[in-house]
C-alpha cells in the first residue's frame, strides 16, 4: 500500500513538473507567472534526485556505508572532521555557491528566459550534479585527494599537469571577470561604493575581535558584523545625499579597478585572520540570508516574467555579449548548470568531513541542485523587469548609443519599448545617478531583486534600500571569492616558483609572499583593466573566456571520473560521465574556435583586432587615440592566444585520455585503481558527527 502511494506521489510530481516545463516552453503572448518556473524547477530536481542520483549511487558507484570514510580514519579535528550531513550540506553549498549562478543566468537572459532555464535544469541534473557527486565519491575513496592528484594517479602525469594549469587559468580569468562585475556595479555610485568600502574596516574590526578578544567566537562576531553592514547600507544614502561625501565616493571604472587590485594584494599578503576570514564570515551569513529571502520573495510576490521566451538575439547579435545560443548560452551559464570549479570543492574539504559514503549523494548531487535553483531564481529576477530596462542596463554605449535618448531609441527599435525617462526615474528610485551601461549582470540583478523584495516589504519607498542591499550582497561575496582566490593563486605561484628557487616556495617568507601576491594580482589585474577600458564592455570578451576555462576544468574532472568508472569495471554505465564530457568538449571547442576565428568582430578576437588595425591604417583613428587602439589590438590578440591555449589543453587532455582508455580496454595496460584499502567502520548506525553530540 505504502509502495503504491509512493509511486503515485512520484508520478504526480513528474506530471506536475512536465506540465510546468511545458507551460514555460510553449507559452506565448501574455507574460508568464514566475511560479511556473519554481514549480518546474523543483519538480524536475525532485525527480532527478529520487531517480537519477539513486541510480548513480546504487548501480554505478555502489556506495558502501560499512566502509570507514577519511573523516573516521584520520579524525584530527582539523581537516578530517566527521560532520553531520545537514551541516556538511550547508558547508558544501556555501563553498560552491558563488556569483556565477547569479551573474551567468542574468547575462544569458538576453536570449530570452527559455534557453537559460532549460540548460540550468537539464545541465544540473545530467552534468553538474553528476560531476560533483562522482568526484566527491572518488575523492572519498582516495583519502580526500584533489582532482589534480587524482588526474595524475588515475589518468597520467600530463593529465595532472593540465589540471594544475587549468586551475591557475580559471583562477586568473575568474578573478578578473568578477572584479569587472564589481567595477560595473560600483562605478558612479557613491552609495554602493561607500557601503562596500565600509565592509573593509568592519571586517578588520571583526578580525581583531576574533583574534584577540574572543578567539574563534564566530557567531557573535558575525551578528555584530552583519548588523554593522546593514547599518552602512542605510548610511550610504546619507553619503549619496551629501555633495562633498558623494564626490569622494564617486569613482570611475579605472579608479575602481585599481582600488580592487590594491585590495586583492592586501588581502593576499595580510594575515588571513585580519581581513580575509572575517569578511568570509560576513559574506556567508549575508549570502545565506539573501538567497533565502529571494526564494521567499519570489514565492510571495509571484512576479510576472516580462522577458519573452526567445528574443531576437538568438541570432548571435546580442548587445550584452555576441554569439548564438549554441555554444554561448552554455558557456555563459556555467555555474548553475555545470562548473568545473566545483570539482575542486568536491575533492577538497568536503570528502574529508563526510561521515558516510551514502551522504555523498545528498551533499554532492543535492547541493548542486540547490545551486541550480539559485540560477533559476536569478533568471526569474532578471526576466521580471521590462526587457527594455534589462537591455538598457546591460548594453554598452558603443552599441546602443551614448545619450539616453539615442539608447532608448535603439532599444525600442529592437522591439523592446523604452523611454529615456523610464531609466531616469528608475535610477532616481533606486538612488543611483544612472543605470545606463552597467553591464556585468550585478546591477540588473539588483534591480530585479529590489523589485521582488520591495514587493514583499516596504513597497517603492524602500526600493533604493533594497537595491543597495542587493548590490552590497553581490559585491561582498564577489570580493570574498576575489580575495580567497588571490590567496590560493598566491600559493600556486609560490608552489610553481619553489620548484625553480626553493626559498620562494616557503609560504611564511615575506619577500616570497609579497612577490607571489604581486604576480597573481598582476595576472588578473591586467585582464580586469583591459575589461574596464574595452569599448565593447569587457564582459563580451572576458565572460566567455571565463566560461571556457571553467568548462575546461569540468572536462578534466569528467575525464578523471570516466577513467575511474572504467577502471571500476562500470563500462556499461560509462555514458553517465562520458556524455556530459563530450558535450562540454563540443561546446568549449566550438566557443573557442568562434572566439578566435569568427569573422564578426564582436565575436572573433582576431577579426576585431584586424578591424582596428585597418582603421588605424586608413587614418580613421584620431592621433591621440592611436596608442590606446594599439593596446586594444594587443589585448584582442592576447585573448585569442589565451583561448587557443585553453583549447589546446582540452585537446591534449582528450587525446591523453583516449590513449589511456584504449590501453586499458585492449588490456595493453594493467588497470590499477588507486583507492585507499577497505577498512570497516566502527561507528554505530545512528552516529551523526562528533560536534553534533554523538561521540
Amino acid at each position, binding site marked *: 500500500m505504502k509502495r503504491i502511494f509512493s509511486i503515485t506521489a512520484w508520478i504526480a510530481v513528474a506530471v506536475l513538473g512536465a506540465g510546468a516545463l511545458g507551460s514555460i516552453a510553449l507559452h506565448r503572448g501574455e507574460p508568464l507567472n514566475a511560479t511556473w518556473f519554481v514549480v518546474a524547477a523543483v519538480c524536475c530536481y525532485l525527480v532527478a534526485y529520487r531517480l537519477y542520483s539513486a541510480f548513480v549511487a546504487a548501480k554505478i558507484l555502489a556506495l558502501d556505508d560499512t566502509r570507514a570514510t577519511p573523516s573516521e580514519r584520520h*579524525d*584530527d*579535528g*582539523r*581537516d578530517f*572532521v566527521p*560532520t*553531520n550531513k*545537514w*551541516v556538511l550540506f*550547508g*558547508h558544501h553549498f*556555501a*563553498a*560552491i*555557491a*558563488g556569483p*556565477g549562478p547569479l551573474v551567468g543566468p542574468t547575462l544569458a537572459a538576453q536570449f530570452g528566459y527559455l534557453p537559460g532555464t532549460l540548460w540550468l535544469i537539464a545541465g544540473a541534473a545530467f552534468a553538474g550534479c553528476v560531476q560533483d557527486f562522482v568526484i566527491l565519491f572518488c575523492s572519498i575513496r582516495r583519502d580526500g585527494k*584533489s582532482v589534480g592528484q587524482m588526474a595524475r594517479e588515475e589518468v597520467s602525469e600530463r593529465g595532472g599537469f593540465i589540471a594544475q594549469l587549468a*586551475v591557475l587559468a*580559471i583562477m586568473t580569468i*575568474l578573478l578578473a571577470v*568578477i572584479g569587472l562585475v564589481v567595477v560595473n556595479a560600483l562605478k558612479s555610485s557613491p552609495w554602493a561604493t561607500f557601503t562596500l568600502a565600509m565592509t573593509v574596516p568592519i571586517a578588520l574590526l571583526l578580525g581583531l575581535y*576574533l*583574534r*584577540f578578544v574572543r*578567539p*574563534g*567566537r*564566530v*557567531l557573535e562576531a*558575525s551578528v555584530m558584523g552583519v548588523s554593522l553592514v546593514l547599518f552602512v547600507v542605510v548610511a550610504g544614502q546619507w553619503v549619496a545625499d551629501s555633495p562633498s561625501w558623494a564626490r569622494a565616493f564617486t569613482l570611475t571604472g579605472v579608479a575602481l579597478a585599481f582600488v580592487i587590485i590594491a585590495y586583492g594584494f592586501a588581502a593576499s599578503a595580510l*594575515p*588571513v*585572520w585580519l581581513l*580575509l*576570514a572575517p569578511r568570509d*564570515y560576513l559574506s556567508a*551569513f549575508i549570502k545565506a540570508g539573501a538567497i533565502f529571502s529571494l526564494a521567499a520573495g519570489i514565492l510571495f510576490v509571484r512576479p510576472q516574467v516580462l522577458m519573452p521566451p526567445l528574443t531576437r538575439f538568438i541570432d548571435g547579435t546580442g548587445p550584452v555579449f555576441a554569439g548564438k545560443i549554441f555554444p554561448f548560452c552554455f558557456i555563459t551559464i*556555467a*555555474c548553475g548548470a555545470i*562548473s568545473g*570549479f566545483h570539482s*575542486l*570543492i568536491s575533492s*577538497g574539504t568536503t570528502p574529508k568531513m563526510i561521515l558516510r559514503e551514502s551522504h555523498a549523494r545528498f551533499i554532492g548531487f543535492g547541493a548542486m541542485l540547490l545551486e541550480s535553483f539559485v540560477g533559476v531564481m536569478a533568471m526569474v529576477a532578471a526576466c521580471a523587469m521590462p526587457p527594455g530596462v534589462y537591455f538598457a542596463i546591460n548594453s554598452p554605449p558603443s552599441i546602443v548609443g551614448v545619450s539616453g535618448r539615442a539608447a532608448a531609441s535603439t532599444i525600442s527599435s529592437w522591439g523592446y519599448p523604452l523611454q529615456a525617462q523610464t531609466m531616469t526615474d528608475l535610477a532616481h528610485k533606486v538612488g543611483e545617478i544612472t543605470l545606463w551601461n552597467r553591464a556585468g549582470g550585478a546591477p540588473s540583478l539588483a534591480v530585479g531583486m529590489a523589485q521582488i523584495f520591495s514587493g514583499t516589504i516596504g513597497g517603492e519607498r524602500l526600493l533604493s534600500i533594497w537595491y543597495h542591499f542587493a548590490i552590497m550582497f553581490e559585491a561582498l561575496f564577489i570580493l570574498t*571569492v576575489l580575495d*580567497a*582566490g588571490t*590567496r*590560493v593563486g598566491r*600559493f600556486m605561484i609560490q608552489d610553481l616558483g619553489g620548484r625553480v628557487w626553493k626559498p620562494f616556495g616557503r*609560504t611564511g617568507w615575506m619577500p616570497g609572499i609579497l612577490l607571489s601576491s604581486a604576480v597573481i594580482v598582476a595576472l588578473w589585474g591586467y585582464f580586469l583593466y583591459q575589461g574596464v577600458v574595452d569599448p565593447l564592455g569587457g564582459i563580451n570578451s572576458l565572460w566567455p573566456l*571565463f566560461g571556457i576555462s*571553467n568548462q575546461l576544468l569540468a572536462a578534466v574532472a569528467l575525464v578523471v571520473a570516466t577513467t575511474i568508472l572504467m577502471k571500476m569495471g562500470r563500462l556499461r554505465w560509462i555514458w553517465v560521465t562520458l556524455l556530459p564530457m563530450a558535450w562540454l568538449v563540443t561546446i568549449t571547442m566550438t566557443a573557442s574556435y568562434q572566439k578566435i576565428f569568427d569573422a564578426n568582430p564582436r565575436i572573433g578576437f582576431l577579426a576585431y583586432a584586424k578591424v582596428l588595425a585597418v582603421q588605424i591604417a586608413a587614418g580613421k583613428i584620431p592621433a591621440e587615440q592611436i596608442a590606446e587602439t594599439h593596446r586594444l589590438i594587443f589585448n584582442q590578440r592576447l585573448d585569442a592566444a589565451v583561448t587557443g591555449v585553453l583549447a589546446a589543453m582540452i585537446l591534449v587532455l582528450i587525446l591523453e585520455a583516449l590513449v589511456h582508455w584504449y590501453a586499458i580496454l585492449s588490456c595493453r595496460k594493467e588497470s590499477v585503481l588507486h583507492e585507499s584499502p577497505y577498512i570497516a567502520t566502527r561507528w554505530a548506525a545512528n552516529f551523526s*558527527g*562528533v*560536534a*553534533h553530540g554523538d*561521540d
Partner: protein
Amino acid sequence: MKRAAMSTSRFLRRFWRGLREWCGDAAYETYLRSKSTRSGSHRTLTPAEFYVEQLNRRYSRPNRCC
C-alpha cells in the same frame, strides 16, 4: 501539546548546534573532542592558536567557488 513543545525544543537545540558547527563557532570544541586530540599524541592548542592555524589551513586551498 507537551510533546509538540518538546519536539520544537529538540529541533531548536539541533538547529543551534548545527548553526554553530556550520559557521565554525564550534570548531574548537570539535577539535577538543577529536580522536587525535583525545589520544594526547600532540600538545593541545589554545583557542587562539587553533583559530589562527585553522584559518591558515582553510584559506590555502580553493574553498570558495565562482
